[in-house]
């Protein structure tokens, strides 16, 4: 069973970058063609 559902994926990279700067954590961007 996939544990991918544990990850809270965002959809706005610019918002993610703002959050990243606040939390000093890097952004991970996943580009996929897998069925959702």
């Amino acid at each position, binding site marked *: 069973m996939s544990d991918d559902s544990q*990850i809270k994926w965002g959809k706005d*990279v610019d918002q993610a970058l703002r959050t990243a700067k606040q939390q000093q954590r890097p952004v991970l961007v*996943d580009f996929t063609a897998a069925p959702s």
Partner: protein
Amino acid sequence: MYPSPNVARLIEAEFIPVRFHIKDNPGMWHRFDVRWTPTILILDWDDGSEARRVEGFLPADEFVGQLELGLGDVAIEHKDWAKAQRYFAHVAEANPETDAAAEGEYWAGVAKYSASHDASALKETARRFTQRHQGTSWAKRASVWKG
């Protein structure tokens, strides 16, 4: 999709995760010059610059290694040599049979040297490559440090 719980835990703990599907966000593919899937980008938290790009599928142990190498890359960017060395050394030790481990060995040596400017750190890295990861591109890169 990430079937390994280790991957999910690492992503949630260390990153701000964003996902784009090829059908839904073509602009994002162009913005980041993505040419294949899956592609993972690790972006620096300070300026959004690309710290690491992982193209194509990897099994879980290699993928975790790449994520941790990316964390080390970000630490190097911020000249946090101690943190970088910890990440890289962990990659080298946790799954020593992986391609990521060889790269971790190399960059752990670079981080140690960058902190101390003591060339013996590079020489020691070259020596370690004579005992493991022989024949890898990272061993070849480190060979110049044998002295």
